[in-house]
């Protein structure tokens, strides 16, 4: 079967043909067994797909998802409130070579500077209902991010001076990490 006809059969099925042409193709489908089989197959796929899209759930909590959107809206709103475009463009025209020199100087300084303690607790986001407390322990050099339920009053407890009383034996099983 010619491709042209195949595509017309499809268009007929999809209601995309003008009325006169649709009538002609309809007659073709009725008269030609091969055309009829092709249309039946296309129709079966259409019917199978109709209303059978797999439901998908967004894999983030409502609050967390919204917090990111809200932040982006606020960022973009703040950016739009900048100085009028023309004035900015003029300043950019004159300052860009200077900015280039400054960037180059910065890069050369950074490439030769001694190691400094890395900064931590940069941009971060935590799901609603959770709190993240970040601290850098100088003695161990470890950066800790402690995640806690907002309603959980317990703090990340520091190492005590005295040993804790011994606990009773129990089968610990697999302590599946549950983030509360």
């Amino acid at each position: 079967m010619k491709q042209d006809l195949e595509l017309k059969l499809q268009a007929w099925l999809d209601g995309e043909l003008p009325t006169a042409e649709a009538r002609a193709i309809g007659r073709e489908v009725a008269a030609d067994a091969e055309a009829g089989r092709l249309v039946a197959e296309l129709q079966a796929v259409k019917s199978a797909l109709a209303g059978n899209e797999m439901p998908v759930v967004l894999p983030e909590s409502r609050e967390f998802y919204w917090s990111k959107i809200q932040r982006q809206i606020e960022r973009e709103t703040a950016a739009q409130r900048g100085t009028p475009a023309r004035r900015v463009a003029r300043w950019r025209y004159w300052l860009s070579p200077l900015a280039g020199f400054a960037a180059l100087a910065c890069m050369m300084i950074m490439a030769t500077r001694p190691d400094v303690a890395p900064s931590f607790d940069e941009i971060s986001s935590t799901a609603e209902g959770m709190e993240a407390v970040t601290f850098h322990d100088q003695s161990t050099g470890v950066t800790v991010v402690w995640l806690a339920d907002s309603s959980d009053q317990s703090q990340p407890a520091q190492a005590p001076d005295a040993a804790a009383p011994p606990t009773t034996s129990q089968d610990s099983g697999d302590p599946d990490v549950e983030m509360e």
Partner: protein
Amino acid sequence: MATHPDQSERSDVDLVRAAQKGGMAAFEELVARHRDKIYARAYSMVRNEDEALDLSQEAWVKGWQRLAQFQGDSSFVTWMTRIVINLCLDQLRKQKRQRAESIEMLEEESGGVERYMPTSNPNPTAGLERTELRKRIDRALGQLSQEHRTVLVLHEFEELEYKEIAKRMDCSIGTVMSRLFYARRRMASLLASLKRENAE
């Protein structure tokens, strides 16, 4: 983020009006109501969770920025779906590789191997329970190329006409028709082979 229980009682129309006046809480309720649908549409097109999350978020931000343009010609969720579709199409265009595109275009011209296949069982999904059917359809969709999946999603799930699809995909109506034909025949073949797999 404080919850606003009273917002959940309001209609979309009311919420949109409130959001158009700057009501962020109303917009947040709209997001909460329709986030799954917008995310699902993004995911169906890009098939990547991270990308779908980013694209859906971007769609909501754009929705907020363009709220004044929403006139109520369609439902709010339909309007938002169009935004996320456009973002996904932009993303797919950026990712398109020239070489693969030429091979696909060649196949589209000739119709690919499916053009020469005999018609398969006219009803490869007969007797399937809905959950199983949806799983198979999803699996089969995942095996299509992005271009073919896109045209199928836009036509079968979004019910767009050829002309509208051509405009959004920035191609000719003829290309839309070829891609759709190829995608459907491929789906028929995939669904039939999934049926055979399960029967064994």
